Structures are given as C-alpha cells and as structure tokens.
C-alpha cells in the first residue's frame, strides 16, 4: 500500500522525553506522570545538549584562533554581551522570543510528519497580518487590540503554512520545496508592500517601512529601559498551549500519529491529509505569532527585514529542543544568547557575525549524529 503522505519519520521518543500519556505506576506518579526515571531522562537529554554545545564552541574557538584572536577573550566578550548585563539579558530575551514561537511551530509540523522549512515566510506574513490589524483598526482597549494583533499574526502565518499543507495533501506537492519557495514569496510580498502601497510617506523614515502601529497595538515593556517586552511571556504561554494540545488532546494525538506512521494512522481512522493541513495551519500560525511579536513588541512598524532569519534558525531551535515545548524554550534562549553574544564579539573583537551560523550548523550536526547513533543502536 502506498503511504498517503511522506514525511519525516521523527522518532517521537526523541528529545527530552517523559510526557507520554498514562502511566502504569498508578497514584504515585499521578495521571500522565512518568515513572521516577523522568528526572534521569531529563538530565541525560540536558547532558547531551551541553555536550553538543561544548563541541560546537570548541570548533568555533579553533576558527577564532585562526583569526588570530584569543578564544578565551572572545568568549568572555560573548558571555558578557549576552548574559552579563541587564541589557544583554533583555536582548537575549528579545531574540529568544520569536525563535521560541517559530520553533514551536516547526516542532508541531515535524511531529506531524511535515517538513515545514517555511517559518521565515510565515513570520513575514504574520507580521503583515499583525500590522494590518495594528495600523488600520481604530484605537481599542489595549488587551482587545493586542488579542486582535495576535490573531492577525496567527492568521497571516496560518494562511502561508496552510497553502503548503493544502498543496501537499491535495497534490502530494513536496512541502520542503513549496515552503522554501513560499519564503521568498512572503519576504518579497512584504518588501513590495513597505516600499509601495504601505510605505510611510512622510519621508522621515530612515528605511522603507510603514508608519508605526497605533499605541494600543503595542506590547508593553517587560524590563524598563530595555527592548524586552511581554511577548516573551506569551511565548512561554504558547509553549504550554502547544504541549497541552500535542499531549492532552485528540487533535494532538492525531497529528503525532500521522507523523509517526501514516499507514497505521489511516487504519485507525485518522484523516492523514487533514492532519497535514491542520499541522501546517498551526505551525504557520505560531510562526505568524513570531512575526506579530516583532512588529508589536520590537520594531513597532513593518519593515522589509522584519525577521533577520529567525525562521531558518527556528528549525535549529526546534531540533535542538528535541521537538518538545520545554526543550524549545531553553534552546531558543541558547540561540538568542548566541546571536547577542556574537554581536558583542563582533563589536568588541571584530569576530565575524557569521560565527553564529557556524555554531548553529555545528550544534545541529552534533544533535543529528547523536540521533543517528541512537537509531542504529535500536535497529
């Protein structure tokens, strides 16, 4: 029999494990709780992650040494810049927030067996949706307006993801290719709008951009006198919602089943094609929230570089987080700190910013090697 849908066969036992439904242990662990080895599993996952980080930084230090810079000084600047000051911590949170939201989206799609590589385009569409709501609605009470901004962002990203999901379900179009192409379309569409129809016509703006959102559509600050805003709290809440949806609802059950084995999913009455579309709607919607977060919390207007590659980096965030919501929160913090710390290294010691991407790649490779090793050992 032919598989209805091809997709990543991600072992769902991967990553920080431990929240599978039910437990034979009865009362002691509570419903849905895990036997006592939960802590051990978490420690092991964290240990492996730290090893991957250490390996990546070791390789990065070699590159830095080749540049003739003392790696210890470089990483001193790195830590100081990202975590050593109040502003550094705030900037790390500012970077981690969109990474977490988009990373959660990527994880939902990957768990459902769909390779969504299109978070970047979905972020742009989400930013656009949020901008429309934040720009063209009359002033509203702030909670109402923020809710609508969030919905606008979710809808924009869901639209972009949903198109790819529909094309895969209906025509077996390869979602990797479609989502990559949709990235370009989304980025260029926003570029067209902010340099044309939606451009701030005052001539005062330093770059092509829209006029600022009205005040009731802006996210309040989290840490005074920094850029940190309460979108970070929404990202943490989103992680909780995604965890609940995936592990505690029939919908999440069907998504995970479709991803784990589409043939078996069909046999137990799951509409795998529908699952693909739903997963892409949610996945794109979460990336769209990241876009809304950038517009409403950081930039306050829409620009043609509203996301500087958060969508691509969020794939690494999701994988490094083991496709688990809590893991993704930590992993987004890590990559947020890498971004901020690398900028500090560049400012202080002229280490090229491209080091970020080298570290990103090295971390992913270390994680994948570990996964391959596990796969081999279970066969």
């Amino acid at each position, binding site marked *: *029999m*032919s598989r209805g849908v091809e997709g990543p*066969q991600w*072992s*769902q*036992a991967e990553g920080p494990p431990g929240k*599978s*439904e*039910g*437990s*034979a*242990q*009865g009362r002691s662990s509570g*419903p*849905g709780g*895990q*036997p006592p080895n939960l802590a051990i599993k978490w420690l092991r996952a964290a240990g492996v992650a730290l090893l991957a980080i250490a390996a990546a930084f070791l390789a990065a230090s070699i590159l830095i040494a080749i540049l003739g810079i003392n790696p210890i000084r470089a990483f001193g600047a790195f830590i100081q810049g990202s975590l050593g000051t109040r502003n550094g911590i705030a900037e790390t949170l500012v970077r981690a927030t969109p990474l977490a939201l988009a990373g959660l989206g990527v994880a939902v799609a990957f768990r459902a067996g769909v390779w969504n590589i299109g978070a970047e385009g979905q972020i742009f569409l989400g930013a656009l949706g949020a901008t429309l709501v934040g720009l063209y609605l009359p002033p509203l009470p702030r909670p109402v307006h923020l809710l609508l901004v969030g919905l606008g962002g979710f809808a924009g990203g869901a639209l972009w993801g949903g198109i790819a999901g529909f094309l895969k379900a209906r025509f077996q179009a390869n979602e990797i290719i479609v989502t990559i192409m949709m990235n370009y379309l989304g980025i260029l569409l926003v570029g067209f709008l902010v340099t044309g129809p939606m451009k701030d016509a005052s001539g005062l703006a330093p770059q092509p951009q829209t006029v600022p959102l009205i005040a009731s559509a802006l996210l309040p600050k989290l840490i005074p006198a920094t850029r940190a805003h309460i979108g970070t709290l929404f990202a943490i809440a989103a992680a909780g919602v995604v965890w609940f949806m995936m*592990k*505690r*609802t*029939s*919908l999440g*059950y*069907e998504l*995970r*089943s479709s991803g*784990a*084995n589409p*043939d*078996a*999913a*069909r*046999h*137990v*009455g*799951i*509409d795998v094609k529908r699952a693909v579309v739903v997963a892409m709607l949610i996945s794109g919607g979460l990336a769209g929230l990241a876009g809304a977060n950038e517009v409403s919390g950081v930039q306050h207007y829409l620009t043609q570089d509203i996301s500087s590659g958060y969508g691509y980096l969020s794939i690494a965030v999701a994988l490094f987080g083991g496709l688990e919501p809590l893991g993704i929160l930590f992993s987004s913090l890590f990559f947020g700190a890498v971004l901020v710390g690398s900028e500090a290294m560049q400012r202080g010691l002229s280490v090229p910013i491209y080091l970020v991407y080298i570290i990103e790649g090295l971390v992913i490779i270390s994680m994948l090697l570990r996964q391959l090793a596990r796969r081999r050992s*279970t066969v």
Partner: protein
Amino acid sequence: MPSSEQAVLRMVGISKKFPGVVANDGVDLEVRAGEVHALLGENGAGKTTLMSILCGLYHPDEGSIIWKGHPVRFASPWQAAAQGIGMVHQDFKLIQRMTVAENVMLGQPSSRRALFDAPAAAAAVERVSADFGLPIDPRTQVRQLSAGMQQRVAILRVLSGRPDLVIFDEPTSVLTPQEAESLFRMMRSLVQQGKSICFITHKLEEVMHIATRVTVLRDGKVVDTSETRLTSPRELARRMVGREVLFTVTKEPSLPRDVTLEVQNLATAGAPGQVALHDISLQVRQGEILGVAGISGNGQNELAEAIAGLRPVLSGRITIDGRETAHSHPREIINMGVAYIPDKVRQNAVFMDLDLAHNAMAKSHRGAPLAPFGVFRMRAIAAHVQRLLAAYHVRAPSQATLARQLSGGNLQRLVLARELSRAQHTPRLIIAANPTAGLDVGATEYVHTQLLEQRDLGRAVLLISADLDELLALSDRIAVLSAGHIVGTVPAGQVHLEDIGLMMGGTNAAGREPLS
C-alpha cells in the same frame, strides 16, 4: 541409474535453517538437461530458499550440490553465473532509473571497469535479445516498461551470461495471461536448445501446462517428484496442501443469525502492482466466521481495505448492519463497530516508535469516555490501557514501553486488545487479515481462541488468511479468491482440500456450483 546419467544438476540432502524456521530440511532435487522442472508448494514451503541456495545467494547448512557431475560450492551469484546457473527473481531486482542496457550489464565483468561503455553495452544487449528472440530497446529506462517487459530485462540479464540452467521464481505472478503465454513459449525454446529450467510456482495449471517433471515441497521437505503427464492437478493439490484428512475442529457448531456484512458486486482498483477486485459478493452473519482463502496478492487486502473504507469502491455495495458504507469515511465505519486487524501489523496497525498507551487507545482517542470534547482524561486512559494490557496478557514493563520493544506475539495481543475491547463502540464485525502470520504456536492459539470467542459472542468475523489450516480450523464457510474474483464459497466442514487448492489456482475444479 539412467536418471542420474541425464541429470545435469543434483542437490542432495540440502538443509537450511533461519532463526526460528527450517526453510529446507534434507531436500533432494534432480534436474535433467532439456527439461522444465517445476517446484510446487505453498508460500513458505521452501522453494525460493532452495533455489537461492542453488544460485549462490545462500549457503546450505548441510547437503551438497553436484553440477554437471562435479560438486560445487557457490560463494556468490556471480560464481553460480560463471558456472552457468542464473536466476530470474520474482521481484526482478532491477534499478528503475537505469536503462535496459545498464541493468543487463550490471554485475557483468565489463561493467566493473571504471568507465561504462554505453554503446558497447547496448550492442551486447541487442545481440542477446536477437539470439533469444526477445526484442527490446536497450536505451529505454526500465521504469518506463510494463511488468512483462521488465521481466524480459531480468531474463536477458540472466541469458547474457549464457547459462545452462535458468531458475524462474514465480515468473507469472505479475504477467497478463498473454505475457505468460509468451514467457512459456520462450521457456520451451530454451529447453529445445538443451538448457534446463527450474520453475517455481504454486499454480497447478502452469505446472500441467509447461513442466516436464514436478517436485512438490511442503514445510521445507520434498513430498514427491513425478512426471507431469503421470499426475493430475487434483493429485498435486493434495500433495501440496498435505493432508487429505480434515482437522478435528474443536469448535461448537456455529449459530449464524442476521446478516452483518453484505458485499454485493464489489469492484475496486488494486494497489500498484496488485490485482483489482471484480464482482465480489459475500455475506457474513452474526455468529459465524467466513474465511477467505487464496494465494496472497489475489485481492485479499483490497477486500479488507474496501470494507474498512480505506480503498475507494468503484462499483457495488457494502452494507454493515443494513447501512450502506461503500463510500463512508473510515472513522464512520470504525464507529459502527468494525474491528480490523490488518495484514502486517507493524506497518499498518502499530506506531512502533510510540508507547503502548498511545497504541492501545487508538480508535478510542476521540470523544467520551477517554477524550470528551477532545481533551484527554488521563486517569481514564491509564485505567483503560491497564485493563487492556491485563485482559489480553500483553507482557510489558509499563504503559510507557515503546511498541518497538514488544515481541510479535505481544504486539498482536496489543492490537487484538485495542480492536476487540474499545472504550466505545463494541465490535459487531471483525476483519482479521493474516492475524497469525509470523506468530509462534502459543500466540497463534491465543489469536484463534479470541476469534472463536468473538464468533460465539454473536459477532461476525471475516477471516482472511494465507494459511489453509487456519481457515479450515476456524471458518464456518470459506470463500476462495483468485485474481480478484471469488471462485466459489464452500462450507468448511465438507470441503475437500484439493478443491480449495484448485480453486486457489483459479479453477472451480469440482465443477460444482458455488455454494453460499
């Protein structure tokens, strides 16, 4: 001994064990020059293993091969080919994205050089194809060819080594009748050139049609070798299936009541490379087991999938408890109380990388009592899963154990538990496809007991199986599928095994009207 003077090949006392299976057990085989020698037997009888040993794919645990009067040991198919023995595999073993010439030359000494000389290869293929009267364009990509033409490529690959003995493994299973006839013509012309042919099959008519002599294998042992003209299909069927005597069936007489499943004139398309169903009609009543016999790949899976709503119905009707379901969504059919134990549970029924709780609650994962309004009640789920694991004796450390870690028997118990004891919708119809394939004796017995218990609870059971013994032991009636048709339906208690064997081969030999 006159026979051994003519023998070009003798295999003596060949034994081959695989973990848990004795595939060949002291097999003797003698093939003469210029004969088509048929190897007849059911699935798993050891035919293919024997021929794989002969062509160097496997090494026998015991026994010897005497080829043209000399004992030989082939370390690889290349060595066998160099000595003049070639095998045309059932699945051809072609590379779809390569051309005919590239496929034919694969493994030949000339293809092992660094550079592949495409024009020379094409010329070589054209030469072979002209010599044996098998025209083909060497430059075509294999994936563009029909199954019959792909087989021709596989045959040319073997013939290009100029063999003296060619082995065909179930060569007609993917061919149309016309293609099969032309294959037989080619086989005859090969033996007229003095070559020998070993022909693996389970189709009686083909044996009678083409073979000079026939060796019947059963359970890894040779039952008999005889001249085809001195035997009959009926006799061969008896030898192949093994027993004339029926089982002592340890089941109560069935008390069939209302019709649960009714299939009328059903037609479906086949999976790629599989047969389509034509004009299938059958009934399953409450409290009876209808067995479906047939050589695997004759439409059994298509039938089960069509009833479960997983395969589009082209025409005809399917009703379950009087409700039309031919075009219903699989979930609706599940919710009508249809339990389905599909063929190949690892692929089709189980999430191997997920835990037992996830697997056990499938089909009950929507709605009350486990998930009212789409939200899981973890206590209810844990209790339900625990009940299933206990009731069906699934031995596992915990609900968090991965399905991958279970043995085949435990896995099948898990599937049975899920299908027969759902949290909602008591089963009314149970479809089981090869439910004991690959299971050991104990697990098999457990599955059988469960199915009979379901019958005695008044449920309708459709049992599809490649195992005739199983069908005879459990079924009340047996329908025989061949090439997507129902050849006949017979009461299990009175049937002669040869009749079923003949019907599986496509003939309603007894000439009696199909009973229903």
